[in-house]
């Protein structure tokens, strides 16, 4: 029974995640289009809604070209590494409370582990191999520069990212994402929700936001694929489905980052709950999805608004500004918690 329920949950989660990845691409094209006074995709289906499917079919039928000068084993393995680690981390993300359907009592996530946050951090830190190895194995100087930039950038910003999460961990006292969310229920003075961002962790949220943009290689930190200087960076030599795998990995990482931001800072699935019982059961998942959507929209909005940093600016911002700020936030949070208890 347990295995049956688990398999159903895994299939369902993967299906939802891959659909979400496809439609995040659609949303990005649409929103950036409107920001730039264009329409975005309109041709396939109403509002271009079937565009992701058309793209998927196109990727499947394109010629899968392997340039003769690449180092083949790693060239083929790199996109798989990237996409596998990006998709795996969703397994630890809870999307709601426990549910009971008939005799089955199960959490709304694939598996509930007590060090969920650490496992997600581990998986995302392994994801960099996909990008670094693709850059190296392509045997192309632009790709190599993209891969080098990606690994340096991700290692640098991982430190600030990790430190920004420690404040939340001190407040909730657990690595379990479910317990972190449970600690954020209720309100201050009856109307301000007790989300971590309102519990004095807004500086940490800002650091997390910046570091997450850098970790997912998005504008304003998309230097690994800066098209004005590196052609397309680490995926210059990739075509067809292998290229699509890098794309999927990037968007799956964006969704994981949005999920983590929601769980750690924005109160997870907590929100106003009202209406008939069936609606009350669905409301938490609705709030969770709404917060993720807001976070993804912010991602796209930033992409449509900001220019790209220079590489030295990226490094000095990460090491000289974000890291000291994260340490200061950690010290102050620890002091406040210690004095309060």
């Amino acid at each position, binding site marked *: 029974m347990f295995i049956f329920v688990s398999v159903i949950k895994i299939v369902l989660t993967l299906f939802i995640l891959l659909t979400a990845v496809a439609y995040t691409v659609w949303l990005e094209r649409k929103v950036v289009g409107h920001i730039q006074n264009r329409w975005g995709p309109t041709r396939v289906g109403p509002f271009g809604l079937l565009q992701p499917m058309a793209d998927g079919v196109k990727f499947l039928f394109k010629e899968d070209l392997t340039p003769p000068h690449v180092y083949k084993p*790693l060239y083929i393995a790199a996109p798989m590494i990237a996409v596998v680690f990006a998709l795996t981390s969703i397994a630890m993300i809870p999307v709601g409370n426990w549910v009971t359907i008939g005799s089955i009592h199960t959490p709304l996530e694939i598996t509930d*582990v*007590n*060090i969920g946050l*650490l*496992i997600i*951090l*581990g*998986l995302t*830190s*392994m994801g*960099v*191999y996909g990008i*670094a*190895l693709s*850059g*190296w194995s392509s045997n192309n100087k632009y790709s*190599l520069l993209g*891969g*080098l930039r990606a*690994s*340096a950038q*991700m*290692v640098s910003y*991982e430190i600030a990212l990790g430190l920004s999460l420690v404040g939340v961990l001190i407040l909730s006292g657990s*690595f379990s994402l479910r317990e972190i969310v449970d600690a954020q229920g209720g309100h201050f003075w009856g109307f301000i929700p007790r989300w971590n961002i309102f519990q004095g962790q807004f500086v940490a949220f800002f650091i997390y936001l910046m570091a997450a943009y850098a970790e997912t290689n998005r504008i304003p930190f998309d230097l690994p694929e800066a098209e004005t200087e590196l052609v397309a960076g680490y995926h210059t030599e990739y075509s067809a489905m292998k290229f699509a795998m890098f794309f999927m990995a990037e968007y799956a990482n964006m969704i994981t980052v949005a999920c983590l931001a929601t769980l750690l800072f924005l109160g997870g699935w907590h929100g106003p709950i009202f209406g008939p019982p069936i609606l009350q059961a669905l409301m938490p998942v609705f709030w969770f999805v709404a917060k993720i959507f807001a976070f993804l929209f912010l991602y796209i909005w930033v992409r449509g608004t900001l220019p790209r940093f220079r590489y030295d600016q990226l490094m000095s911002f990460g090491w000289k500004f974000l890291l000291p700020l994260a340490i200061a936030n950690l010290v102050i949070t620890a002091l406040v918690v210690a004095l309060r208890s």
Partner: protein
Amino acid sequence: MLHLILFLFFGAICVAGAVNLLLQTHPINSALSLVVVMGSLAVEYLLLGAEFVAAVQVIVYAGAIMVLFVFVIMLLNAGEEAHSGGSRIAIYIGVPGMLAASALVTWVLLQRSGTDSVAAGALPGSPQQIGWLLFHDFLLPFEVTSILVLIAIMGAVVLAANPEAVQQNKREG
């Protein structure tokens, strides 16, 4: 039973990765074999109930240190290396020595602790317990280690910094 199968499976992967690390001629393949060794070691820790150590193993060793190894290999664009024949000392003293040491360890383990299995979670391994030990019982060694690491970092900076370039930067402000 499943635990034992998984443990032996990842143990085999770990050993295979370590052997491959020595046999490969290209440094990047060796580095990636080392990543495989680290990853399967993390799974072994997890199966032994040390979940925090497993997560740290992946985050620190596989996810950060090995990334830097790969980074350096990529940056230097190191090529294939020829296998040297190996040193005589390693063959005549090292191999028998290693065999003797592992035989000794096996003998001691079999004699002392028996071969009974321990239930997962029976030994301390959760983040709370490790945090308590680290910041309570072993606070002084922990802090001393952090100072040691700081000294090592400063040493690396001093060794890597090019004095002329530093002067040049100062002049240009």
